């Protein structure tokens, strides 16, 4: 204790002297730090191990997901023209502006560079019908960022997928506009079987046609995307390309699309085998509506999906089951949004209940 005091007072004395001349006289007490190794006069960096870190980081993940959506965006522009460009860019801008304003109000550092606001805006736009007014996109984006994400505390704290929450808000507020569809520019009228009236087709998605008109749509246009639907969800091809890119980069957990699509195929397939005339085939389930977009880009949102492996399976299979129930027996033709939001809400509980046994733990 005494020693420390002396050293401290020495330092104080040293500091009070102006460093004009260096005292050559030997000090009475040697400062234990005199011989510290200082390359170029800098002290060594101290920190707690590990001193090695993965090259991944959060912005990289977010921007990679956005990059993986490029094929879907291109598809949207091909099928729905310039309107798609307006909607997507306005959504993104509105989302980023909201994020910036709220971080300013909360006196938090700017978080635009982490790419999450960009991604939310982009995803929201891709889930909207092509006839939706641009002002509605702004509203949806503001809601998604402000009440879907920032109100919980920003990135990582939200319970529900912000883009889907924004869409749910728009669905509740503008139910008619959210279900008014147009056919894409290169629509193939021969793709529809059953009692076809052109009016019905221009006004509905393949799932809507099935639900209300009992019209089945061919699988090929569903796969390519020249059918009615939201901006980014019609083309299975484009979404699969981006989704597989994400899985290869491991920025999305492969269990979620596998569990989600697999359970839809199995549960949908059971009904199809019971009565193929009434119920659509599993392939139709997979390719129609927003399922692929949801399974690859919405449900895989890391923030709102479980962290445990068992939990991830429960989450994805549960979402698939809810989706099939909504599609076949619910009032709405499509249920991807609600199935994912429901499972998002269950995620904290799933995490809690599926804690893995720790190494060597004996649990009854």
């Amino acid at each position: 204790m005494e020693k420390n005091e002396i050293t401290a007072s020495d330092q104080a004395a040293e500091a009070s002297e102006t460093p004009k001349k260096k005292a050559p006289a030997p000090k009475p007490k040697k400062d234990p730090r005199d011989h510290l190794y200082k390359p170029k006069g800098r002290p060594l960096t101290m920190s707690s191990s590990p001193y090695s870190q993965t090259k991944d980081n959060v912005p990289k993940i977010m921007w990679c997901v956005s990059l993986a959506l490029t094929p879907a965006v291109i598809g949207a522009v091909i099928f729905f023209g310039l309107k798609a460009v307006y909607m997507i860019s306005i959504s993104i801008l509105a989302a980023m502006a909201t994020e910036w304003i709220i971080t300013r109000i909360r006196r938090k550092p700017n978080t635009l560079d982490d790419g999450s606001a960009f991604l939310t805006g982009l995803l929201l736009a891709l889930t909207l019908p092509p006839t939706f007014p641009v002002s509605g996109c702004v509203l949806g984006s503001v809601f998604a960022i402000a009440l879907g994400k920032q109100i919980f505390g920003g990135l990582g704290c939200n319970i529900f997928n912000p883009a889907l929450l924004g869409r749910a808000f728009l669905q509740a507020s503008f139910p008619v506009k959210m279900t008014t569809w147009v056919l894409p520019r290169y629509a193939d009228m021969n793709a529809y079987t059953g009692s076809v009236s052109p009016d019905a087709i221009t006004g509905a998605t393949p799932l809507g046609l099935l639900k209300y008109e009992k019209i089945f749509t061919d699988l090929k246009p569903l796969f390519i995307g020249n059918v009615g639907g939201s901006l980014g969800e019609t083309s299975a091809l484009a979404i699969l390309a981006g989704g597989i890119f994400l899985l290869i980069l491991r920025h999305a957990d492969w269990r979620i699309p596998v569990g989600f699509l697999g359970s839809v195929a199995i549960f949908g397939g059971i009904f199809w085998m019971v009565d193929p005339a009434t119920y659509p085939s599993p392939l139709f389930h997979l390719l129609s509506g927003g399922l692929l977009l949801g399974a690859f880009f919405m449900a895989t949102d890391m923030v709102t999906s479980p962290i445990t492996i068992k939990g991830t399976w429960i989450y994805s299979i549960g979402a698939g089951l809810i989706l099939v129930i909504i599609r076949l027996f619910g009032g709405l033709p499509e249920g991807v949004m609600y199935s994912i939001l429901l499972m998002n809400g269950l995620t904290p509980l799933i995490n809690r209940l599926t804690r893995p046994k720790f190494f060597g733990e004996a649990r009854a």
Partner: protein
Amino acid sequence: MKLRTFKKGIHLEEYKEFSCDKKIEQMPLPKQVYIPLQQHIGAPCEPLVKKGDTVKTGQVIGRSSAYVSAPVHASITGVVKAVDKFFHPLGMRVEMVHIERTGDEDDWELLSIPENWEKAPRVELIKLINDAGIVGMGGAAFPTHVKLNPPTDKKIDSFILNGVECEPYLTSDHRLMVEHTDQILAGMNIIMSILNVENGYIGIENNKPDAIEMMSKRVKELGYSFLVVPLEVKYPQGAEKMLIESVLRRRVPAGGLPMDVGVVVNNVATAKAVADAVLEGKSLVERVTTVTGDGIVNPKNLLTRIGTPFNDLVEFCGGAKDETTMVFMGGPMMGQAQYDLSVPVIKATGGIVCNTSKMITMVKHFPCIHCGACVDACPMYLLPTQLAKLTEHKKYEEAEKLGIQNCIECGSCAFSCPAHIPLVQWLRVGKMRVSELKHKQKAS
């Protein structure tokens, strides 16, 4: 052939090429050494010498009467200059014996060894190993004689020699296995006969083919029945519990010890130290240390005396480059950053790594996005992100329920976190607080 391994864990850049082909070099005797009186887990030693005493190499200078402890020995012949507190590489000031070398002689004070160790009673051998001050040299520095003397109700049936060396950069165990194969095997044989076990395994990661080949060859030639087990290159393969799972498919129960599943694990350097002690009467006064990293001019594997200041080793390797920004003892995953290179080599110093800013980068933290990378990495099946959050919010009791005390602090979680959250660092804090809390509960 599919290599044996454990589940989860991470894959790291190895950076072993700096020193993996460099032969072990004998360091010249240091001018002075600082020998910490605590280098191991357990009770610290009481100094047996005072200022002005002359000591011989291998002379006991500190001893404790506690069972879980190991004596320390003078590592050079000289005069005790001081018994005082100096900086320890683990970051605190610890009582050390400062010895200055007199002249060039290196007088050894050897232990009295049995003429034929095979006939010597087991107790005598264990006492000899204790007197030689041998501790686990892989990093944890647990006194070896305690491991070799398990309670009688634990039936030990297997012994695993740990030659995994899963930390990046370090190559001291690798070189030992290639160059001192016979001593290591002799040490293993001694340990196994003390434990009275039949099954001996040598676990080596598959990135050391020359060591695997050398060990297998000598095992065959010397007629031992040990099995060399090549293991997948994965971190933390060398952690005791992971190694036991990899080699024997047995899981040490949570909160238990390897002896609970009938296994004892020792490091290759420890086995060599045992052979040196039992066959030659040498106490543990020197060890092989890797001096490496991209900040070192000539990375080397050095046979150095315990207590040699880091500075001497670094200078012997051509010095550190000007761009060096960080020096740590041990590997980058579980090592200890140093701020002062006057600290001495201790029994657990497997390496000194000097890195430039190219290898060590400052990172920005992001909020946790629940990606689950840490959960996928944790070899103990914990949820590091939740435990870190609970610690951050001081909910230690809940953290304990979620198994924070099982954390082996391997650092896999913090490595794999894309948000660069200091997970293992939080877990260390949490573990400390939880055990403090337990102590308090016990006291009241």
